[in-house]
């Protein structure tokens, strides 16, 4: 039974904008990020990576590297415990242990350019890099493929030989093309037959990267008793512990992971890359600490980007504007190992709408590119590009108003999501209504500069959010302040949003709560900072811990007053006797009088939440295009999003703006540009070209609050949904500006010029 809550309209702490607790450290340079740690006797590690997209490793000769002055250790796959070909749970769902280990250090084959082959530890970073260059690898280069079409060519070998002859591969006809699911509901084929308007199209997207500014890093050292200590920048210390334990085949409790400050993640800092290499190097070098920082090129080539792929979508509507049928085939790039997150794409593709007859077929497609990882609402922006574009085209074809059609068919409580679940209370309708009320919607698009053209588009998006497990410990200080210990790494202000929920519950100020993110020895299991879950789930755990603290303090007050426990109540930060109005004491005053009532007061809260409450957003984009060059400038951009309840509105706005900025980059410019031989040709920030401050306007935000009934304060996750609408919103604006529909992302200058020329 899931508990439900009635929202309050007024709060004392929630909805205010206090300065974040970790702010001072982060504006003064004192905050310790993963790369900042320094330990006694520490040496440096680096990784040798494959220059080939697909090759058999014939031999690896490390002798020259090992002989170099200043080199302490060299490790290859054989220095890791032998991994069986079996499925294990690594906290992100089941995966094959051999694949997980091979992605850390390749064994028999390299599957993408950038695939790690060997680790080197030396007295300093420069020496380690010199030594890595001295390792000789003999390759037998194999044919490679970097997109979903080329990889299923008849002469393209299986990237993972385990899939040869598997049921999924048999059905699709190629070992690199694994059918994951078919979701079907109603009778889509019959519904298309009865529809007055049917439209279909193919959409294509390239792989993109999260682009976090801080490279991956890890520092590891073994104790003499076999305990492994790791310091790293991660979205989940416990997830690192889980993955490292699996790869090194040791007990989780023998590993302590200390999460240092993290410089961005967006899903990409959930998997491990360097940690087992640092551990293996530390052991081989005599149990000294080994620190590793991934260079930027390797972050692009060797970490976990977001899937590109192809989406075929068909929609059917009646002449009076009712969406009656949808059918889609999703072929998403997994990279070199399975896991494209096509399942999430299937959950999201129809989630803005109520479609009574539908089918979704999902394929996980292996290509010679790095194994994809989560990227902010993973899988949803790609399918939003397809459906929000095709909905616009359907409206134009049939003469429907684009807003009214979306409003009439909007998903609401009771609507069935494409993959089966029935929606609880959601805010799609409210978001669309609020979008129509914005200043942006009701303002003229303005004059284009001479020779240029302007266009406006809008689009919506959905993300399901997750709950999962979180733990929080509280301890009360004599002065009435509270220490809050949590396991959720703070990527964007969640110390504040968790502390504020504890403070609200306890009747004290945000500043009275001191939140600390701790290592895996020091707090109960806490799942990743991901899935837009931290303010929701860890906030819920903080609420539970605060409620337990209040219950304990009621007992203490009853002892102080020598009255019955049940006679004590707590309201607005004050404990009082129900029967004797003379007896009352504030939270902080009581904290100073606990000496004789039974010792220090501590409490804990933990949750395991299944229901999360999905979130919706609608974005409006005005842009200006130079038809000569194809250069596109976003000139005005507004985000409307349901936050359930905004705990700290500034950081909710920040999530919205940041997600939109990434989505605008995805729409207009960002891509893995692969050379013919399968190497990423733009693996630097110069060439990958993420949006700069000069590329973006001031992004306007409207927070809609449709309280989430399964959270004490009505919170919905806010971090991910803002990256979903931008790609189609930009595409719809481009169509409005130049009258041509682009169905391939990025919709960059070259594609715009080519479209205008044809």
């Amino acid at each position: 039974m899931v508990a439900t809550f009635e929202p309050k309209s007024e709060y004392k702490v929630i909805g205010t904008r206090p300065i974040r607790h970790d702010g001072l450290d982060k504006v003064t340079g004192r905050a310790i990020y993963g790369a900042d740690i320094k330990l006694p006797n520490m040496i440096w590690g680096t990784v040798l990576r494959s220059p080939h997209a697909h090759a058999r490793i014939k031999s690896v000769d490390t002798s020259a590297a090992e002989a170099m002055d200043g080199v302490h250790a060299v490790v290859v796959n054989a220095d890791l415990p032998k991994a069986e070909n079996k499925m294990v749970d690594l906290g992100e769902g089941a995966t094959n242990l051999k694949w997980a280990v091979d992605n850390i250090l390749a064994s028999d084959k390299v599957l993408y350019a950038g695939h790690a082959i060997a680790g080197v530890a030396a007295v300093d970073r420069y020496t380690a890099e010199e030594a890595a260059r001295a390792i000789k690898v003999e390759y037998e280069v194999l044919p490679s493929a970097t997109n979903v079409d080329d990889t299923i060519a008849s002469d393209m070998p299986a990237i993972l030989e385990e899939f040869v002859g598997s049921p999924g591969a048999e059905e699709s006809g190629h070992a690199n093309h694994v059918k994951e699911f078919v979701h079907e509901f109603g009778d889509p084929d019959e519904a298309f037959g009865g529809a007055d308007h049917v439209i279909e199209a193919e959409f294509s997207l390239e792989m993109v990267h999260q682009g976090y500014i801080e490279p991956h890093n890890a520092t590891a050292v073994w104790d003499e008793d076999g305990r492994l200590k790791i310091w790293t920048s991660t979205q989940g210390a416990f997830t690192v512990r889980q993955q490292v334990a699996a790869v090194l085949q040791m007990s989780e409790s023998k590993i302590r992971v200390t999460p240092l400050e993290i410089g961005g993640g967006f899903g990409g800092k959930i998997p491990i890359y360097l940690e087992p290499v640092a551990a293996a190097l530390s052991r081989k070098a005599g149990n000294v600490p080994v620190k590793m920082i991934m260079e930027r090129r390797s972050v692009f080539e060797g970490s976990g980007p977001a899937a590109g792929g192809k989406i075929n979508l068909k929609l059917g509507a009646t002449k009076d504007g009712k969406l009656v049928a949808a059918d889609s085939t999703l072929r998403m790039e997994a990279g070199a190992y399975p896991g494209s997150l096509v399942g999430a794409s299937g959950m999201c593709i129809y989630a803005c709408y109520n479609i009574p007859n539908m089918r979704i077929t999902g394929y996980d497609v292996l290509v010679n590119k790095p194994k994809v990882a989560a990227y902010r609402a993973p899988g949803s922006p790609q399918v939003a590009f397809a459906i929000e574009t095709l909905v616009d085209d359907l409206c134009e074809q049939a003469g429907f108003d684009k807003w009214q059609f979306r409003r009439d068919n909007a998903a609401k409580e009771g609507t069935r999501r494409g993959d089966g679940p029935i929606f609880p209370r959601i805010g799609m309708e409210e978001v669309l209504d609020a979008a129509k009320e914005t200043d942006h919607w009701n303002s003229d698009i303005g004059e284009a500069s001479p020779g240029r053209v302007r266009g406006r588009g809008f689009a919506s998006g959905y993300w399901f959010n997750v709950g999962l497990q979180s733990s929080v410990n509280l301890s009360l200080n004599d002065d009435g302040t509270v220490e809050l210990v949590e396991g959720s790494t703070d990527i964007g202000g969640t110390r504040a949003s968790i502390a504020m929920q504890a403070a609200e519950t306890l009747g004290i100020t945000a500043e009275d709560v001191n939140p600390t993110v701790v290592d895996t020895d020091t707090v109960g299991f806490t799942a990743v900072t991901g899935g837009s879950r931290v303010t929701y789930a860890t906030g819920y755990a903080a609420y539970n811990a605060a409620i337990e603290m209040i219950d304990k303090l009621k007992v203490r007050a009853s002892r102080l007053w020598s009255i019955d426990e049940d006679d004590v109540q707590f309201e607005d930060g004050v404990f009082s006797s129900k029967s004797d109005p003379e007896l009352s004491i504030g939270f902080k005053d009581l904290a100073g009088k606990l000496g004789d009532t039974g010792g220090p007061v501590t409490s804990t809260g933990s949750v395991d939440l299944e229901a999360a409450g999905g979130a919706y957003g609608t974005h409006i984009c005005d842009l200006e295009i130079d038809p000569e060059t194809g250069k596109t400038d976003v000139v005005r951009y507004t985000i409307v999003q349901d936050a359930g309840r905004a705990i700290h509105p500034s950081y909710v706005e920040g999530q919205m703006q940041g997600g939109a900025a990434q989505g605008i980059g995805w729409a207009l410019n960002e891509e893995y540009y692969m050379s013919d031989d399968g190497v990423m040709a733009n693996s630097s920030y110069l060439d990958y070209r993420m949006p700069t401050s000069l590329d973006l306007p001031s992004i306007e935000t409207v927070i809609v609050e449709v309280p989430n009934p399964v959270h004490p304060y009505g919170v919905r996750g806010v971090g991910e949904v803002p990256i979903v609408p931008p790609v189609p919103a930009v595409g719809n604006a481009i169509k409005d500006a130049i009258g041509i529909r682009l169905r391939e992302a990025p919709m960059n200058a070259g594609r715009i010029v080519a479209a205008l020329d044809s």
Partner: protein
Amino acid sequence: MTTQVTPGPSRVHVRTTINGNSHEFLVPPYMSLLDTLREIVGLTGTKEGCLDGNCGACTVSLDGRIVDSCLVLGAEIDGKSVETVEGMATSEGLHPLQQAFLEEAALQCGICTPGFLVAAKGLLDNEPAPDEHRIRHWLAGNLCRCTGYDKIVRAVQKASAEMA
């Protein structure tokens, strides 16, 4: 047998001023100013993002000029003056830019923040009242992947107003 001494050519003697303090040290001739600050001087507030001058996370001020410290050698600062994020706050308190970044929620993960602060200070030291476009143009060498820049620009505007 391995050694704890860095191999390679002999080190360069450097006397320099960092955040107003005199420093004297030996640095390998190939070591970047970024690594020199972080590994030799011990100031880790300056961050590594890309090591090829395209993200601005390692921005410092060198004799009053904004540079990417990953593109400068440590040996080059001999006789010069370097300012890093650690030098912005004084015993009087935070620099107005630091205060404005906190109040305007202009940071999320915070890894780009030191670079933005040093770069923005470089702007306001020379141009006390830049308009929004000028701020966006000046900061275009600093990448932020979290904020979408809006709150950063507002924070710089706020600090500019406070310092006027």
